[in-house]
């Protein structure tokens, strides 16, 4: 059963790929076993993360990137992550609109994903879905996220090349530092560069990168900044060239540095995986208990404070936490 599914995925059957992705997304029991078996077929694709504020043109940049990569004969998988409404739990996934021209191309597989507000589970399920697209044999996988939450930033960060898209006119460079995504960019794209202040933004960004670069001289890659008008396909060839350059620069790192990077990433991913399983399991154990409901009532009555309730619940339900006073 598992072997036949794995075989279909590796053969690139879009239907089976789509269904498995849905199962991962919905956390259907048993999916983990398929992922375990699928893992040895992964590791071939080049993963590009692309992030930035809403409305900067990420999907349009991705659309043009797909076009360029397809012209070069490469196959592409796209994972477009959009935010789930914290109020309703629903989401509108509209990234496909910008990528319509590829909708009949068999060399392109596009999938939308809602963040669903899981406890840190987003990064993990996204990584599993990247694995599936990788195993189905896509040469490039582009992961698009709105760069606002820690999870979204983490996803972009775990890519081989991370692109940050920005637009002129969204405040000064201090805004860019504040956003906290500045540090993770391998390539910066200033999109909608026909707008006023594009050059000024480039200068500001350049100054910031120069400072960072001086500090970490040993780093062999200095992030380039590109001006683009994605809607007119301007600056995209340059972007693809920079991605290839970055890819080569990664390859030319010393063996030690490559192993170091791999180790750091593997550690990051494993901790993340453990974290999300632990949180899921332990929360379930605590919140399903009758004590939890009792304590909740006590807090509402005012007979107990939430700090004590937290400590009591943890020490009662998770004995390895000790007396709960460590934090």
């Amino acid at each position: 059963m598992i072997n036949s599914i794995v075989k279909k995925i590796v053969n690139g059957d879009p239907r089976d790929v789509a269904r498995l992705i849905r199962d991962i997304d919905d956390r259907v029991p048993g999916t983990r076993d398929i992922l375990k078996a699928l893992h040895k077929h992964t590791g071939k694709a080049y993963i590009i993360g692309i992030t930035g504020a809403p409305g900067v043109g990420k999907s349009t940049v991705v659309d043009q990137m797909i076009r360029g990569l397809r012209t070069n004969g490469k196959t592409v998988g796209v994972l477009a992550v959009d935010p789930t409404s914290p109020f309703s739990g629903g989401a509108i996934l509209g990234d496909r609109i910008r990528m319509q021209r590829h909708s009949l191309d068999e060399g392109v597989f596009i999938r939308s994903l809602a963040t669903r507000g899981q406890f840190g589970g987003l990064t993990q399920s996204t990584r599993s879905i990247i694995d599936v697209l990788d195993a189905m044999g896509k040469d490039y996988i582009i992961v698009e996220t709105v760069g606002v939450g820690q999870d979204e930033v983490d996803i972009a960060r775990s890519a081989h090349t991370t692109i940050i898209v920005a637009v002129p006119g969204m405040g000064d460079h201090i805004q860019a530092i504040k956003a906290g995504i500045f540090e993770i960019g391998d390539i910066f794209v200033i999109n909608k560069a026909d707008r006023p202040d594009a050059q000024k933004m480039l200068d500001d960004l350049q100054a910031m990168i120069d400072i960072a670069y001086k500090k970490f001289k040993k780093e062999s890659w200095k992030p380039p900044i590109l001006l683009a008008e994605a809607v007119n396909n301007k600056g995209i060839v340059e972007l693809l060239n920079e991605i290839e350059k970055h890819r080569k620069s990664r390859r030319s790192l010393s063996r030690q540095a490559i192993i170091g990077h791999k180790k750091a990433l593997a550690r990051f991913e494993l901790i993340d995986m453990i974290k999300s399983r632990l949180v899921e399991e332990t929360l379930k154990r605590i919140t399903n208990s009758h004590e939890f409901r009792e304590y909740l009532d006590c807090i509402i009555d005012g007979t107990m404070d939430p700090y004590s309730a937290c400590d009591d619940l943890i020490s009662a339900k998770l004995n390895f936490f000790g007396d709960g006073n460590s934090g």
Partner: protein
Amino acid sequence: MSKRKHIKVLISVIGLDGHFTGAQIVSRFLMDAGMEVVYLGIYQTPEMIVNAAIQESVDLIGISSHASNYEQIGVLLDLMKKNDLHDIPVICGGTIPKQHAEALIKRGVSKIFPPQSTSESIINYIVSVVKR
């Protein structure tokens, strides 16, 4: 389908039809009802809709029609059958005259929502067919 916690639907306008308002309003209230909505936009051919439905593995397809291009909806149904997607219900909304609506139901559309349909009726219908 009952194992799914989230309902994921695809909403599209079909063929040579640029009337997006209805599709967008429906998308919006389905989101507010807690559904995940893949919104494809306007001018979608049956082939594009089928491909998106496969790649996104949606539970239901909603087609908005305001341009008397009902034949396209029939083509979509045929194409879905050919692609083994007959278990995905198709619902339609918009200005579809009664006799065309009846013909579409005969061809396999599971429900048609004429103008004046309430958002509740659409939401309730989707929940009832998807969770069945």
